[in-house]
């Protein structure tokens, strides 16, 4: 179904529906999560992606299913687009044993080995070295595919950003770095934390071809991702995309959001990636008038099912607390 072999976006109706559906799935899923959080069904940290959906959808649409993804604690969207069943993701949010990480990870640690979805990392910039290593493995094993690493602009201040970009460039590794620049790291605006706020120019200094893209425009994101991932697959070394985006909600459910102007938020909401895309697609005749509504109905149903599944699911028994800390010792052991 997904056309990954092409390095350009083909906006058939089918593809447009898929893009909108995926963005809608994320949006509604997270709105539901926020509600469930206030009901105390979901606990811990909950970082919403609302406003940034175009990035996960655009980029992951360009990836093959076996191209690894490494993400952050703000990864529900990435997990859903990658194809993790919403029920499993929702069960994970609840902490149930049927969750994608057996409930042990929660919102920040969604994993799926069968989807090559490597999480879900709650240490800022902690995922970058892992992505470099996954790409190194592919290269050494002769497998031609990209590894895609998502992280925020705040992560670009960390030492691991620098070390990882250097390694990837030096060893010519097939990594696609995607910096989701939503302008804030918790309450710290980019300009207050990094002397050079142009993230994409900073990638270039390692010799990594990089591109900044409108992260509210799913088509632009997908187009940039296709170009980049094709170059990566061709063995041209790592690529870097800076997606300029914005989170509409607070950093987490604990955040009083005191550090930015309401007007700024409102201005960005005018560029809501869902409306932006569906309005354009409708006016361009790519989407049909009923598509939006149908998607909403489908997604509502999917969410109901997911919540029902999560509600009904079992807790992991306490006796299993210590399973899988380490593996059982292998038989081959002397």
């Amino acid at each position, binding site marked *: 179904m997904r056309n990954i072999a092409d390095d350009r976006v083909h906006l058939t109706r089918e593809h447009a529906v898929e893009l909108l559906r995926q963005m809608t799935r994320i949006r509604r899923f997270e709105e539901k999560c926020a509600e469930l959080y206030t009901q105390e069904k979901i606990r811990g940290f909950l970082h919403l992606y609302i406003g940034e959906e175009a990035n996960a959808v655009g980029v992951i649409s360009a990836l093959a299913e076996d191209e690894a993804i490494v993400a952050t604690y703000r990864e529900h969207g990435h997990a859903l687009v990658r194809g993790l069943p919403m029920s499993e993701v929702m069960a994970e949010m609840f902490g149930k044993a049927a969750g994608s990480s057996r409930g042990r990870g929660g919102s920040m640690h969604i994993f799926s080995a069968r989807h090559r979805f490597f999480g879900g990392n709650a240490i*800022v910039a902690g995922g970058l070295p892992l992505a470099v290593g996954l790409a190194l493995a592919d290269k050494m094993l002769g497998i031609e595919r990209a590894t895609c690493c998502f992280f925020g602009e705040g992560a670009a201040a960390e*030492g691991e950003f620098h070390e990882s970009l250097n390694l990837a460039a030096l060893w010519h590794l097939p990594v696609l770095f995607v910096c989701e620049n939503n302008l804030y790291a918790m309450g710290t*605006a980019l300009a207050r934390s990094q002397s050079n706020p142009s993230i994409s120019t900073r990638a270039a200094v390692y010799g990594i071809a990089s591109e900044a893209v409108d992260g509210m425009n799913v088509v632009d994101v997908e187009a940039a991702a296709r170009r980049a991932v094709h170059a990566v697959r061709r063995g041209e070394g790592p690529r870097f995309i800076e997606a300029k985006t914005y989170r509409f909600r607070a950093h987490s459910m604990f955040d009083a959001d005191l550090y930015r102007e309401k007007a700024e938020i409102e201005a960005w909401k005018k560029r809501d990636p869902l409306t932006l895309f569906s309005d354009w697609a409708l006016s361009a005749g790519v989407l049909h008038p009923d598509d939006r509504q149908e998607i909403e109905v489908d997604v509502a149903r999917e969410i109901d099912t997911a919540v029902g599944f999560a509600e009904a699911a079992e807790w992991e028994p306490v006796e299993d607390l210590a399973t899988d800390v380490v593996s059982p010792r292998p038989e081959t052991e002397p």
Partner: protein
Amino acid sequence: MTVRRMNYREAVREALREALARDKRVFLMGEDVNRYGGAYACSLGLPAEFGDERIRDAPLSESAFVGAGIGAALGGMRPIVEIMTINFSLLALDQIVNSAATLRHMSGGQFSVPIVIRMATGAGRQLAAQHSHSLEGWYGHIPGIRVLAPATVADARGMLWPALLDPDPVVIMEHATLYNDEDELPAEGDMSVDITKAAKRREGSDATVIAHSASVKKALNAAEMLAGEGIDCEVIDLRILRPLDDETIVASVRKTHRAVIVDEAWRSGSLAAEISSRITEQAFYDLDGAVERVCSAEVPIPYPKHLEQAALPQPQSIAAAVRKAMRR
């Protein structure tokens, strides 16, 4: 004496405010301490009083801003560096171990590093494996630093100023589940507390329960449960994790002849192990039985409440350990 109620968070904030007002060389530096008000809202409101220079937002770069704090301390300032949580302090450990803790000795006594590093610690808030570490025992291993663990509102209020007076690096561990705890404090006067001694939080004669930080409350709860069974526990709050106050600990054990140590860290290589060893080393012939430890299960802390709570020390497990020590 008039008293007032405040919570642990407010106590930290008031202590910060006092320090900033008393000494121009004091400044607070860390991620999100200014605009955001601190991840645990400890510095909310302080920028208006002290400005952006002295309540200094730092980029996500734990190694560099902790190292910069050490450098600023060498340069004559009195930095308070906030590491958002102990989990991220791993990224700054090199600076703490190899610079802050060694400079005085390695330079033959020429340099002082009067830095205070505060960090939130511990589990209990369903934050899962990467955000629930109790690694304060690691800090307790490092010569050259002092490690404080305020378990009460009074200690949260009163430890900071003496820490700043210490010419050496001091690390203050604030357990994240304590910030909303309330207590009464004197309305005025010097709030400073002694940062060299452990505290007896409950007097008792049958067994000594030794805890620190958020575990102190759990130990007190256990003591209440056991009182109903006729077991009278003494509860010691370590308060200072390095250097440990052996005297208070050993004196209590000499009296009760039984010791149970509670520590939210993983059992193997925990601070509890150190205390247990010291007790057997110093009071072996006073002991009626083996020193017991109640620690966290040796698993990355899981997200769901029932598993997380099962992994951590609880009043029930503490009480069970005391009964075991009493051979009941």
